[in-house]
């Protein structure tokens, strides 16, 4: 149970306060309701590049990092297809420094050409390091456009290609800021050794003067249901073959999401999971095998992945993966097995309460989903899933004509 209070400033900024007096630290987490799905298809990778530029100085403060480090604070940020999330942890006695820094960059950036030039290079190196210079590193660059034909999830947060990043202009940066970075599109969580009244005062002082800006109305092309088998084979400089099967699945806010996520746990969470036990240990068809979901706000991806052991053909490997999911379609999951993955979900939620930053990020994300209070009822939703629902969802999900298969063949 994560307790909190919340209020909204006149300019639309939503503020959530979570008091936790077991720590001498405070956390300030700001979620901006913008991700790579909001990008122009001709300027992909922009939300993430923009995240880097948020550290390049703001209108009144030339350097973001140093003043924070000087008061003993640390910060970072991440960009996903759905959101951009910034966070600070610092000794609670210096909480105001975080308000000063965050409010100034919400007010306006410095928009320095020099910062843009350097961060373009840094992000291009990130592109190379994480996506191009790693075995299988380009998997999402290849798989996303197979699963999505219309929806902007068809590109990864890093962008479609390096050229899009290299071409970014300062005017584009300014326009992106104006469109997405304002109090109405943000959710702030302040947690740790703080008091509600103190946060109210600080929010009033630093954030209330920021103009509300324009509300961004999202209107994205939604992905049509898939009714065709999609597949691609690449011969790559990888040491062993790899099979990826991605299926379209319900979005994060859909009721069906919970049953689908539990299916991925049944298949591959921990050493007692079905795929690990049957395919890695018993039949020894794979050296490793995984099932996981992308809990995206719009239609997501359910992914099955495995590296076949030597001598196992791609056909055998694919057939074995389908055989496992076929079982979920035809036979109800035994009650004990379902209880097992539900217990795991429940204890994971409790363990995540040990981390102040996790709590703050979760509160912000659930507020974006509709209501921060949803965080506290999440476990119940997983516990309420029945074997019959799992079977029903398995039948909707695991259709060959809902699948996109990507095969990596090791170059001989």
């Amino acid at each position, binding site marked *: 149970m994560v307790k909190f209070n919340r209020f909204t400033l006149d300019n639309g900024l939503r503020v959530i306060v979570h008091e936790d007096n077991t720590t001498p630290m405070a956390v300030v987490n700001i979620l901006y309701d913008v991700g790579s799905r909001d990008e122009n298809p001709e300027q992909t990778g922009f939300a993430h590049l923009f995240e880097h530029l948020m550290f390049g100085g703001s209108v009144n403060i030339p350097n973001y990092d140093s003043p924070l480090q000087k*008061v*003993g604070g640390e910060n970072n940020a991440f960009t996903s297809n759905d959101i951009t999330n910034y966070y600070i942890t610092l000794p609670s006695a210096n909480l105001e420094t975080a308000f000063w820094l965050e409010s100034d960059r919400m007010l306006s950036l410095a928009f320095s050409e020099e910062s843009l030039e350097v961060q373009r290079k840094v992000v291009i190196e990130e592109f190379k390091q994480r996506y191009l210079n790693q075995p299988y590193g380009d998997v999402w660059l290849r798989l996303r456009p197979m699963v999505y034909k219309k929806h902007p999830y068809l590109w990864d947060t890093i962008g479609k290609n390096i050229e899009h990043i290299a071409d970014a202009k300062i005017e584009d940066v300014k326009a992106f800021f104006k469109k997405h970075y304002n109090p109405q599109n943000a959710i702030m969580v302040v947690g740790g050794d703080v008091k509600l009244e103190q946060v109210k005062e600080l929010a009033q002082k630093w954030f209330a003067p920021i103009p509300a800006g324009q509300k961004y109305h999202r209107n994205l092309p939604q992905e049509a249901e898939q009714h065709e088998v999609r597949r691609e084979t690449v011969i790559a400089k990888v040491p*062993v073959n790899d099979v990826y099967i991605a299926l379209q699945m319900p979005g994060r806010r859909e009721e069906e999401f919970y049953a689908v996520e539990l299916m991925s746990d049944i298949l591959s969470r921990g*050493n007692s999971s079905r795929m690990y036990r049957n395919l890695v240990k018993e039949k020894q068809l794979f050296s490793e095998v995984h099932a996981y979901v992308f809990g995206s706000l719009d239609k997501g991806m359910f992914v099955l992945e495995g590296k076949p052991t*030597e001598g196992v053909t791609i056909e055998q490997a694919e057939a074995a993966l389908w055989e496992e999911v076929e079982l979920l379609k035809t036979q109800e999951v035994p009650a004990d097995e379902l209880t097992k993955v539900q217990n795991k979900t*429940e204890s994971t939620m409790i363990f995540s309460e*040990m981390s102040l930053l996790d709590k703050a990020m979760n509160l912000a994300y659930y507020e974006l989903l509709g209501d921060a209070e949803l965080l506290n009822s999440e476990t119940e939703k997983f516990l309420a899933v029945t074997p019959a629902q799992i079977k029903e969802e398995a039948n909707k999900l695991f259709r060959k004509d809902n699948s996109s298969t990507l095969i990596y063949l090791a170059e001989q």
Partner: protein
Amino acid sequence: MIDRTLAPEFKAIDNINLIRPEQKKLANGCEVFSFNSGDQELVRIEWIFTNLRFDPAKPLLNMATNTMLTDGTTSLTAAEIADKIDFYGAFLSVDYGFEQSLVTLYSLTKHLDKTLPVVKDILINSVFPQKELETFIRNQQQKLQVSLQKNDVVARRTFNKALYGDTIYGLTADVDTYNTLKRDDLLTHFKQMFQPSNCSIIIAGKVEQAALDLLADTFGADWEGTSTAVDTTQPEVNRATEHFYFVEKQDALQSAIRMGLPFINREHPDFPAVQVLNTVLGGYFGSRLMNNIREDKGYTYGIGSGITSYKQGGALFIATEVGADVCKAAIIEIEKEIGLLKTELIPNEELTLVRNYMLGSLLGSLENVFSHADKFKNLYFSGMSYEYYDRYTEIVKSVTADELLKLANRYLDFDQFYKVIVGKY
């Protein structure tokens, strides 16, 4: 109107309060340390064993023995072990380190009576089934093949091999090395290492008396050591004479760079001060290496430096992946930054920032009771007392730019650096 150009006032961190453990020795020699704090009804328990003396002829033995602890006992199969743990929403992991290896259990307190017996069983009755061993070897070989395609992994292995030679720290197994693993060796290793007298148990979380009693009852009885003493001494480290290594990768878009040299460890009186020096150089996001090589030149996504502390001495290292075309330029800049530390005093403003950052970072690292237990482990396994953190805090606050300049000249000889480049040069 507020003046947004002015930073709010701030307070420096005065002192750090660490939670210290309650200690208890069980009749069979097993030490128990407990940290009681927090509101959630859960605990983390670690069973920590000091590694046996490293045998260069069987380099993977320690790793394999530890990793396969969950693969079967006289009464439970690997599948049954996994079932029992997962059913109660617990997490069980086995990890091997250079000096200690450990079994970690995360469990809700209410399920300890179900989860503890499983841990006891694997610590006493593991059998390392032949079939599981074969699966393990095959899967590890395939995973290793994937890792060896990563330039940063190859750089780390090459660096460690040069610095530590044929010791556990320099371990660079290739695919064939896995074939030297034999079940009988694992069993012998297991019997020698997993004895109560070689075990420290650390429990952290909401530790009530009932949980402590259950822990003591479970692990204090029906678990006796063998009469042979555990040999945990380690062979001397022999460093390579060659200091430069270039592993060419024809199509590399980036080159991995790893360089550094043997260094003092935590027990040395200069350790806290050289950590300040390291932080200035590459120990945080605003470090000189990051500022120069990422934020000014844009050569890399990230660069950092760090100090590892082992019983037989530590190492200082710098690691990064840079655009293949700027590899030489990046190395020149690294050398330049090290030179600056030796010739110019660190400006007051930068030093103040680093002091505050380090203290804030220490405070922030104490996120929950688990982190307090982790701090204790750092001390306990280096044979040090809590006085270390008092001294650390004091030195971070007070070390002068003059002293840091002297330390840089004493410890940072770029010509003595081992340098590894994987990719293009």
